[in-house]
């Protein structure tokens, strides 16, 4: 009897922890900022669509947008929105274009690039990647080896 009660308590605790983890996961994802070369970078959110802004980062007055050609329905854009905070040790360097991996490890590229990242102390921008419709994405790589987890944002 005592054994059953202990097991029941254990189950309650496990359930509490599990529910807690589920609730906490999105917060962790939003807080999952990385610091690199004097910049704090975090993923704001991720969206999918057939039309996307193509400005560089930080965003200027570029109004050019890309589209998935009407009549084609096998690809879509994954649009990754990023937040940046310039830290005191920031030094301008030319970062290469970011890219993403899907869950199978395939690489997707963008023509968008990083620009003058210290133009404002805090700013947001987005990078777009054309992927097969519904393809789950895993991570975004900036400056080659800095990975930002996309899985929690890709629902």
């Amino acid at each position: 009897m005592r054994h059953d009660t202990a097991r029941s308590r254990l189950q309650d605790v496990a359930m509490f922890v599990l529910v807690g983890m589920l609730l906490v996961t999105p917060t962790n994802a939003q807080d999952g900022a990385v610091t690199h070369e004097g910049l704090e970078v975090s993923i704001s959110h991720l969206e999918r669509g057939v039309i996307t802004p193509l400005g560089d980062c930080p965003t200027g007055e570029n109004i050019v947008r890309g589209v998935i050609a009407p009549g084609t329905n096998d690809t879509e854009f994954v649009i990754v929105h990023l937040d940046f905070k310039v830290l005191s040790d920031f030094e301008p360097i030319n970062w290469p274009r970011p890219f993403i991996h899907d869950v199978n490890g395939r690489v997707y590229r963008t023509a968008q690039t990083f620009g003058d990242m210290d133009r404002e102390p805090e700013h947001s921008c987005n990078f777009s990647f054309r992927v097969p419709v519904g393809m789950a994405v895993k991570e975004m790589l900036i400056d080659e080896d800095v990975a930002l987890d996309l899985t929690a944002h890709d629902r």
Partner: protein
Amino acid sequence: MEIDRRKFFKSVGGATAVALMTSEQKADALEHFMEDELEKYALEQARQAGQYPTVAELAEQDEDLARGNRRGAGRLFVRGPNGQLRPLQPMPEKPTLIDFFKYRFGFASTHCLQSASRALKTGMDEKVILACLLHDVILEVVTPDHGWWGAQLIEPYVPEETTFAIRYHSTLRFFPDSDYGYEYPEGYLRTFGEDYVPEPYLQRTAEKVRNHKFYEHSRLVTVNDLYAFDRSKTVSIEPFIDIVGRHFKQPKEGLGWDDSPSSHMWRTLINPDRRL
């Protein structure tokens, strides 16, 4: 329609310029300004609504014979947003490429400098940077099939990779390439129609170019081209002078006067008012 006075004054060169105009000139300028604004407004409304013209609708517009000019006329030959032709300064006796940037390449100059600046910043090959710098300067003369025209203009003076890149960039712009992150521009839905399919000659050309050893050169021009429409950016020619010096064979007689296969095209830029 409400007129933004500040914007209108700016479009015609400022309050001083307006003060120097006759009443008739002011009325003309205002009419052109309003037409331009209306067109922008209609485009923006259509953009927000996700509405684009069809190929047939665009073809119908082209039947308007009361237009001031056909769409393929280069920028030197058509009126600007202020309703007037761009004033031109005399060229030096032996003009260099840099002189053409100073005295003749208007819109093309800004756009190409932005594009080349992006290529420079992302560490591209100098022959690609040069291609970006020159890829649209021919738009001052003519716009249809401008890749081919533009390549002819510079072919006697630049490396073959640069010529190739310019010749085919206008074709490749119709074909997305996810390996380079190049996407189809939304603006093309408005310019060519939402149901536009590149003509067979473009399809053939794209296929040929995709299998060519210089494909990347041309593709990288499109990658930089797409993003080079940021009106907030002004770029100087200065960062490119060394690259031009290394890769552009400047004729000692001056462009236009060296009897090359494209001298006549440079002379047209020098004097676009020449009758015949």
